[in-house]
């Protein structure tokens, strides 16, 4: 299973439970407001607490929260564990474009081309301010920091084109700092890699 799939699973898990809780809380609240309106229920009861109930609604949310933490952490591990033998691409962020450098010295601006089905590790850094490399399609994001190398990885099982955006505000043209990710068959990739820039 791909890490992106695990992340989506965590999304469904957390959002699903959240929607149930929201629906439950809102429904109960509305029912109380309608049923115990003053015209229908003029004399309130004096209930101040209920220890058992309070323990239950502390313990159960704690367990739910811990299970969500676990789902989130598990999917995070997937995003951080790069398979052995992944190909590496050096990514350099600058105001306001992305430079991708391959093993053979090939440099490409705002266009990341990778072969289908292969794990790709991106080693990310910046030459100026903070940027952040974001590929929504693969649920990955990592900051580009000058003086530091960070990483992210992904693997594509289908050919296609995706957006790469900068998500750490970096100046006037922050929103124009966009690149394209192209997933192509192995052969096409090799041709591209050897081609003149």
């Amino acid at each position: 299973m791909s890490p992106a799939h695990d992340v989506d699973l965590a999304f469904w898990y957390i959002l699903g439970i959240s929607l149930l809780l929201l629906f439950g809380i809102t429904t109960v609240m509305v029912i109380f407001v309608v049923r115990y309106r003053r015209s229908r229920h003029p004399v309130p009861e004096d209930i101040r607490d209920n220890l058992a109930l309070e323990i239950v609604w502390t313990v159960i949310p704690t367990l739910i929260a811990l299970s969500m933490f676990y789902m989130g952490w598990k999917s995070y591990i997937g995003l951080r564990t790069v398979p052995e033998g992944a190909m590496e691409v050096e990514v350099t962020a600058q105001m306001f474009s992305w430079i991708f450098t391959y093993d053979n010295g090939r440099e490409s601006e705002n266009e990341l081309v990778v072969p289908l089905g292969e794990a790709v590790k991106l080693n990310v850094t910046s030459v100026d301010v903070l940027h952040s490399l974001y590929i929504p399609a693969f649920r990955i994001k990592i900051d580009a920091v000058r003086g530091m190398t960070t990483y992210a990885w992904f693997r594509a099982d289908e050919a296609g084109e995706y957006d790469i955006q900068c998500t750490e505000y970096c100046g006037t043209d922050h929103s124009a700092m966009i690149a394209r990710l192209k997933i192509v068959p192995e052969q096409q990739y090799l041709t591209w890699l050897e081609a003149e820039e």
Partner: protein
Amino acid sequence: MTTAQSYLEHSSPPGRRGWKAWLLTHDHKRLGLMYLWAILFWFVLAVLLGLLMRTELMGAGRTIMGAETYSSMFTLHGVIMIFFFGIPAIPAIFGNFFLPIQLGADDVFFPRLNLLSWYLFMFGGGFAIFSLFFGDGFPDTGWTFYVPFSISSAGNVSLTVTAAFILGMSSMLTGLNFVTTFHRLRHKGMGLMKIPLFTWSLYATAWVQILATPVIAITFVLVVLERLLAIGLFEPDRGGDPLLYQHLFWMYSHPAVYIIILPAMGVISEIIPVFSRKAIFGYKGIVYSSLAIAIAGSLVWAHHMYTSGMSDVSVFVFSLLTFLVAVPSAVKVFSWVSTMYRGSIAMSPPFFLSLCFIYLFTVGGLTGLVLGAAGTDIHVHDTHFVVAHFHFVMLGGTGFAFFAALHYWWPKMFGVLYRNRPAYVGAVAAAVGFVFHFVPMLILGMQGMPRRYYDYLPQYETGNFLAGFGAYLLVFGLLLMLLNLVLSLRGRRTAPANPWGGTTLEWTVPSPPPVENFTATPEIKDFPYDFSEIVANSKK
């Protein structure tokens, strides 16, 4: 007799007239009003800036402004909403006004320091305005002032962070006053478990203000030093560490979120019982959860930094702690809803706004779980999802609680009643507009639209266009509520001492309260939310 003694007509110290009676006042109530007008000015300004930004985003490409103006606008919107509205609004206005009264005291412990605190707030505000028109241009870094951008930015960052520094002093002094008043001036008969929950929440908040604010103050000084003297603490080329800045910044700014939300929770804990005519459910649970939030909330700051490049171990620790801090907030929500069970509920504008609060804050809290979980946060971090999430908490939560507090205490503060119909219309418009504005932003974020984007890819156009309409409805609702309140000051429909049937001490004194707050020794109840008397009286 009672009206003649009102704080609005008699100054403290006595004998001061005209402007001196206000600008040199020691009266916590007058200071509350002075904060009210200053903070409302900033709030309306920042709301309008936000509206202009969303108008710009309604169409792709340039709509009404350029990218640089847009960057300055989101910076100013953030700086004002956090430092000039969110942090001070409820403590400085309603805390100043009602904390001493709820404790049975005649003023705060340090009245002159309280006045100084107001002057620092105004001075900081003046400084912020000054920084716009002098120097090298509008600051354009976002309210987070992340390095190294804030070091190299040509904008007037130094002056803006200095303004925030001064506001921090004001916030700390207010916190100091609340803690000392709580301990030293509380009425002799008022034990710890007899204190109203609003005051408890301010007390928990005050400790965070005192302990966390120095961190941001020092950090801002270091940013200025880095800009002026290149000391090499944050700048990587000189051996500095940009992540250090982020840790220091969030070490304050995450607790600041709790400074903003805790008093709002206190407001809701006052309003729900009064209009349900029923004791707050789980009083002690709410007190302890306030304290737990204040403590645990100070230990989760790096959940803003999962993508920053910090270690995976840090991600593990901060994600785990973040989930634990969610629990006391959930306990409060359950307590509020349970308070209504078998109550006798009267609808009113403050109560309606409190119901909106519970709904919107719950959405804010639940979307926070997506951000607290490490794997999912990676995808939505720094996207519109985050923007929508914290607006659910800050505006849907604190903003609606602020309006609830305005409608709840306005009759007490000014001695006048407002019209209900415009208040309801405004509240409904604001709530509906809010949902139509921020739900599309949650979806945009999950689709991958980053925040602080002046322009966007074509797939995000529909969502942004729709969100714009919600924004207009929201702003209309907010302004209508404010207008209705301000117009009530002319109408002179006099408010009785206890228009809602409240049980805390502020409802035992005339509206508006006398200068010394109490004309006779206040009678302290064994339980602050004992409605038996109110219920008995209403039967007669």
